[in-house]
């Protein structure tokens, strides 16, 4: 399997023909922090997706693959690791959209999303990655109005 693409987005719509539509590519996430500071492990209850494309070779057809996802906090600690399995039924490009519920936002910096393919428990592709830059913004203060 040859890696073609990886990106993160807010939504993926998959139609009846299996075509994927990506909504709002996520490169930056900005937060306005409440006066009570959020903890460093804070997770926002929002859904987001990692979309990837893989080009099969002739020997990949009929094989079962497992895609591994890792998400790392800006400080390098792992936030989550998860997997999804898919069979490669034919020679068409494989599109995989994986939904995460919970966006780690407690730390300002680069949120790394790493993925690769396993087959029979063995890694068969190099890890590839993308990132979301999380930025903390001060919450705007209310300006006093004159009477």
């Amino acid at each position, binding site marked *: 399997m040859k890696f073609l693409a990886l990106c993160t987005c807010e939504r993926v719509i998959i139609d009846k023909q299996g075509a994927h539509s990506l909504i*709002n590519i996520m490169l930056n996430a900005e937060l306005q922090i409440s006066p009570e500071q959020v903890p460093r492990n804070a*997770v926002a209850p929002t859904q987001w997706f990692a979309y990837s494309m893989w080009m099969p070779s002739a020997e990949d057809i009929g094989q079962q693959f497992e895609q591994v996802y890792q998400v790392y906090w800006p400080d390098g600690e792992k936030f*989550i690791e998860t997997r999804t399995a898919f069979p490669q039924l034919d020679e068409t490009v494989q599109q995989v959209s994986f939904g995460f519920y919970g966006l780690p936002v407690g730390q300002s910096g680069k949120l790394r999303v790493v993925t690769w393919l396993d087959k029979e428990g063995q890694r068969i592709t190099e890890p590839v990655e993308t990132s979301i830059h999380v930025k903390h913004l001060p919450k705007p203060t209310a300006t006093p109005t004159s009477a």
Partner: protein
Amino acid sequence: MRYRCPVCFFDKLPYPPADYHICPCCGTEFGNDDADYSHEQLREMWIAGGANWFFGRSPEHWNPWLQLIQAGHEYAVPFKIKVGIRQPLGAERWVNIIRGTHEIPRVVYV
């Protein structure tokens, strides 16, 4: 067989949440603590104390907020966060996620 804690929603309890078993995540002793307080009250107390792991080492990559969110109880996450998904090249679209305890989650597109 694994059981879910009705207070913090840790879903790998080795015993049912009863008979004085203690949740290693939130520390609730079932039959004792929940005789005096409701599960919701105990959850609020656990969160107010920082939602820390109670006993021993937490599972690898354990996150209390993700645990609440994935259990469908994101309303219990106490901090209010407004996340903007900013695109380069000037295109900008905001997703406001504002909630407080006991509020129904809502997403507002501006």
